[in-house]
């Protein structure tokens, strides 16, 4: 079973790599293949379509201005489940694709203990044993997995309605569907922040598929070690000495930079 999934993912990755390409410049590392990037943006697209078409049904008196975007209430209601199905479908593939790097390890438990230092910005470098994904990313991933399962089950119940599933089940699903949306939306805010302005240099991982080496040794040191064979701390110290030397040799540079 597991190997069948791996073979499927392997084939998909190869197929997609021949459709698109991932250019890695000198000083960069390859992060996400075309297949992963394609799935990620399909998930994001359909997630937001489902989210916005759902807003008008979630709190109609507040979000009624969302429904005209989808051609009015009836059409928004008719499209919403399909957006959701596509989102869950693509995320399902992404889940298989990412199952391995998303497994929880002792390093992740360690990372969670450091959470305060990381959020407060005191710890500039991630713990040295942080691998391809950190514990925060893994938690979010598994939250979305659970969320998608809840969405799918409760969504089908709401879709077919009380005629098929009875009033009680529909009423319960109504609440759980909301809970799943609220939790996921809260998480997505954090996700978008961290992958864009919160941790500069991350966004290109999902667009071009490559990241800079400093990004890698800062945020995912164990992964850096794995793919380059170099020690992340050493690489960092070397780079730091170089910048400092450059600054002392050329003080105008430092004035320029500090503006």
């Amino acid at each position, binding site marked *: 079973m597991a190997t069948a999934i791996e073979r499927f993912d392997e084939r998909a990755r190869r197929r997609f790599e021949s459709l698109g390409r991932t250019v890695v410049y000198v000083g960069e590392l390859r992060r996400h293949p075309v297949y992963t990037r394609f799935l990620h943006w399909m998930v994001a697209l359909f997630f937001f379509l489902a989210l916005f078409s759902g807003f008008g049904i979630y709190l109609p*008196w507040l979000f009624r201005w969302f429904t005209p975007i989808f051609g009015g*209430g*009836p059409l928004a209601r008719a499209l919403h489940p399909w957006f959701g199905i596509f989102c869950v479908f693509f995320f399902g593939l992404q889940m298989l694709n990412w199952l391995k790097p998303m497994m929880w390890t002792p390093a992740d438990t360690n990372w969670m203990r450091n959470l305060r230092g990381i*959020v407060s910005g005191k710890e500039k*470098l991630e713990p040295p044993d942080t691998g391809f994904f950190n514990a925060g990313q893994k938690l979010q991933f598994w939250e979305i997995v659970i969320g998608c399962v809840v969405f799918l089950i409760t969504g089908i119940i709401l879709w077919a309605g009380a005629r098929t599933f009875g*009033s009680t089940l*529909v009423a319960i699903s109504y609440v759980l569907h909301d809970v799943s949306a609220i939790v996921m939306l809260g998480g997505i805010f954090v996700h978008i922040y961290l992958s864009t302005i919160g941790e*500069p240099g991350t966004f290109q991982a999902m667009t071009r598929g490559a990241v800079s080496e400093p990004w890698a040794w800062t945020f995912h040191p164990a992964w850096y070690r794995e793919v380059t064979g170099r020690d992340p701390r050493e690489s960092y110290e070397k780079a730091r000495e170089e910048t400092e030397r450059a600054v002392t040799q050329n003080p105008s540079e430092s004035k320029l930079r500090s503006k």
Partner: protein
Amino acid sequence: MSDRKTLQIQRMSAHPGPIPGTGVQRDVQVCKLVDTTTCIGCKACEVACVEWNDMPFGATTFDNTYQTMPETRWNFWNLIKFNEHPREDGTVQWLMRKDQCMHCADPGCLAACPADGAIVQYTNGIVDFNQENCIGCEYCVSGCPFNIPKLNPGTKKVYKCTLCSDRVGEGLEPACIKACPTGCLKFGTKDDMKFIAEERAKQLRDNFGMEKAGVYDPESIGGTHVIYVLHDATDPERYGGLPKNPTIPWSYTVWKWLFKPVLGAFALFGGLGVLLHYVTVGPRRPQPEPPNKEGTNGNGD
């Protein structure tokens, strides 16, 4: 031909702000009284409903009872439910109950509905669906304690008994009332109908030996604008789908009006939180950063 409606709306599904038309007009609470003890199951009301509302003559289902079909349909709003109740002495009692929308004072359908103005309640108590606003989600079906709203799968619009709002608005009684040959159906103000119903129940208790006779006007949903006189008011379930304590699922009450906005706001605070993080703590950059003014190179030491 003025645009002044005969019926004014007092409640409207999913509507932000005040209800237009509030306070324009004084109105009495109307009520339909169904006396199950004098219903002979003739189905004149079923036919009158189909006739007045110009509904198609659909196929009926024969299942060895005196009931026209298992339940109401989107284009068949008035059904005489037939049930056999075994008495203690071994004989059976035939129960005929006219099943239709109960026009609850606290309508579960209206509470559940997410479409602005798809369900309205007039000041006279009638609960009515405006199909042009309906988005076909069927939440009303699960909000209704009486299994009344029905979806037209072809058009994705929900329909139910209107209490002949078109007739009542013109000062006429509903079509079913007009057709009833035994006087088992009556129509008037809620106060009058309640009075007559209680008198009739008392008569049944005093003169007909039905000690448990009573009126069905469930308090749990604020009372209804269709009330029944029952042979045995302690066990309404025996009449087929008449719950003793009808309730609206809390998903459409507390959850919808309190938790949804509050928890939704919490999710939005997530957005506010990251914004605050950005302007206070600031982004985490790949290291090393270029040295800053104080001369440290930003790695915390």
